[in-house]
């Protein structure tokens, strides 16, 4: 009897070990079959192709926003990469642990990772890891999410952005904005908006976007800066969008003015997710993945899945992506005490 249960426990442990080992490959397993059918088409043109499963580091936990979008892309990219893409969730340290792991990985083209801007830039400024932008070789951009200024849909005080700014100036330092954490992306957005419009406000930092929205909803905060995807399904029902952080109006929100056209913050602000390899990978590797992910992002099946999951895909090639990383880094370095009004 005892032996039997010893065996049972041993099996339990094996299961546990297997469970922790298989947490990552579980998702791609389902799509392995089609991967085999169509080996990488672009291998010939670039002269390089991965000879084994590709490890894709996601610096946030399974089920998080980044993880979800990464898995959707990975699922369809396998066909073009010709190998299984294994999502490896390396969370913690506000993303810096995963990015440190990516920076330290062998630049053999078998390890890639997703990088989130502006969180990545902030982590460098705050010295969360030992890496810099030079530790990575950007491959392509995947997702772009534009920041927006929102208020509660039932808040009659602020029908538009002008009334919000006028009120904020009249009651300087009184309006409250909930954010997704101190100096996190949405705090940067709120601060940039307030600076450009010339008022001060009280920021109420919350643990994440969900709590940030709750804080707006329960009337603790008066306005918030979030991304369009965060309030999908709630537009005009729960929240009203007053303005977007972009050069021109968004196609899906034609009636919402840009901050720039109202004379406030000029240009784009938001978050983006890109794919990068550790610095030192060969140009062939970059070219291979550039082509593979571009094809995946143009795949009609991917586009359908992405639309369903609310992913705003924006492909950019390696050079353009690298430029964005540097530009965001410069922006983050420029967020001095003066910017924060301290």
């Amino acid at each position, binding site marked *: *009897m*005892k032996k039997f*249960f*010893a065996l*049972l*426990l*041993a099996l*339990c*442990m094996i*299961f*546990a*070990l297997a*469970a*922790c080992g*298989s*947490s990552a490959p*579980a*998702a791609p397993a*389902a799509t392995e079959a089609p991967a085999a059918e169509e080996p990488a088409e672009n291998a010939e043109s670039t002269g390089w192709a991965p000879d084994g499963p590709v490890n894709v580091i996601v610096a946030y936990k*399974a*089920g998080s926003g980044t993880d*979800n979008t990464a*898995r959707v892309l990975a699922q369809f990219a396998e066909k073009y990469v010709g190998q299984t893409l294994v999502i490896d*969730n*390396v*969370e*913690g*340290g*506000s993303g810096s*642990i995963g990015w*440190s792991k990516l920076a330290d990985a062998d630049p053999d083209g078998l390890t890639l990772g997703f990088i989130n801007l502006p969180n990545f830039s902030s*982590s460098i400024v*705050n010295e*969360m*890891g030992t890496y810099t932008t030079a530790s990575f070789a950007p491959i392509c951009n995947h997702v772009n999410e534009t920041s927006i200024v929102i208020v509660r849909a039932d808040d009659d005080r602020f029908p538009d952005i002008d009334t919000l700014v006028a009120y904020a100036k009249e009651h300087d330092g009184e309006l409250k904005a909930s954010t997704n*954490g*101190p*100096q996190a992306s949405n705090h940067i957005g709120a601060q940039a908006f307030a600076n450009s419009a010339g008022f001060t406000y*009280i*920021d*109420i*930092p*919350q643990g994440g976007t*969900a*709590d940030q*929205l*709750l*804080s707006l*909803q*329960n*009337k*603790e*905060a008066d306005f918030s800066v979030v991304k369009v995807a965060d309030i*999908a*399904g*709630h537009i005009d*029902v729960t929240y009203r969008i007053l303005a977007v952080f972009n050069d021109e109006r968004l196609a899906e929100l034609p009636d919402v003015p840009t901050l720039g056209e109202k004379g406030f913050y000029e240009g784009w602000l938001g978050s983006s997710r890109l794919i990068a390899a550790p610095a030192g990978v060969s140009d062939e590797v970059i070219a291979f993945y550039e082509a593979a992910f571009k094809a995946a992002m143009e795949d009609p099946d991917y586009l359908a899945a992405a639309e*369903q*999951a*609310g992913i705003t895909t924006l492909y950019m090639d390696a050079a353009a992506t690298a430029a964005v990383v540097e530009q965001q880094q410069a922006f983050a370095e420029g967020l001095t005490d003066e910017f924060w009004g301290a």
Partner: protein
Amino acid sequence: MLETLSLMGAGFLNALTPINLLMMAGGVAMGIVIGCMPGLSAAMGVALMLPMTFTMKPETGLIVLGAIYCGAIFGGSISAILIHTPGTPASAATAIEGYQMTLNGRAGKALFTACYSSFWGGLLSCISLYFFAPLLAQLTLKFRSAEYFWLSIFGLTIIAGVSGKSLVKGLISGALGLLLSTIGLDPITGAKRFMFGQSYFAEGINTTCALIGLFSMSQVFILAEKKIVQRAKATKVTDKMGLSREERKQIRPTIFRSWIIGNLIGILPGAGASIACFLGYNTSRQFSKHKEMFGKGSIEGVAGSEAANNAVTGGSLIPTLTLGIPGESVTAVLMGGLVIQGLTPGPELFGKYAPMTYTFFAGFVLVQFFMLGIGLLGSRGFAQISRLSDAILIPCVTVLCFVGSYAIHKNIMDIVVMLSFGVVGYLMRKFDLNTAAVVLALILGPIGEKGLRNALRSSQGDIGILFSSVVCWVLIALCVVGILSPLFMNRLEKKAEEEAVAGTDEDIEVLTQEDSV
């Protein structure tokens, strides 16, 4: 109204397809196995299975995840009862009374109570899911920073309740937990606190690792210290699984109270099953007519904790589905599954996607019955684990501690933290300090800190904001009750003890050793 009823009915019909039923049974069984293994938490189980549900129909995928969730929350109680190692944080309070029952040779009864209470807690929480979802979601909107501050203070008053013999030692433990909870990035300014240059600590001490260390690893050290024969004798399961009619009647009010507590806790974002089990346990203790049994293996204590943590499941789905704000970590993962299926939490789920939503609800109801069935049939098997000699159990639990803490983030630092807390927990128990109070403070500290500081920020330093709403005053009243009741209870307890027959002294002597968790 009629339309809603027909949607509910159709939901049950849709949920009763063979594939859905199979998934429910499989999900529950898997959840129980995951739950009863220390270190494999409900959130992890759901996260592990999430990718596999991508290819399923939305309702089937959600039902699987819901089944794992419920199964894991119940499963945690099995190891809590049998090896004094809560399989999930949600069963930390179950270990207190459940393990005492095992020591008393009433393991079967403890398991039955846990299963029975979990079933009712879960089933009752479905009622609220169905009928009070929109209504209860409104309540959450009343909670701002000030209310969260008081909520965490109310939670911390539980320390007084779980402290057992010495309130001072309980408070010392709680203070240690609060101190540890300040490690990491400052929630308001983002400054690095006590991180010693390690970005690993940016998000604070990993509660799960701390919990595995404090509860499980320290248990290994304690077990390893003792003579092996002692334990094998103490944990033989000799009793029948079942409760007499009187006993069922006895725990009925407890289950009902815990349902309310668990449901409300579930609805509040941030506060999950791990807090609910302590609140449920403490309340059962306060209202019990058999207080003398607490600390010595009370079925009410087990019922209070287990009904509360399973009542969280339905409750935490309410804000997840209506507001898109998960009530706890598991539903946060579950929400990821929802979004990947192209479903947005919010009014659409009850309008456009109502058939899918009601099928999921119906599945969630049916899952409770699977949990009862599989729990009752399977627990007997799991119960045998405690018959194992320590010579086998110690290495097994050790391996699970290591695997469990590593599996969460696949970070070797998690094992270091787990081991450190194991040593700390061992020493604390040697000095009669309270490890549960540390965990409680570790969870509640950040909620309270953020609540207080944000409240004062938004009022520009005016302390009046902390007393500015009805909800605040209700919570303050609860805090006062929470603080005073143990003092009052202690007096009653002493009186009862004096009256108790001196013959049981020897038993109590043995039990106080284990009392400290």
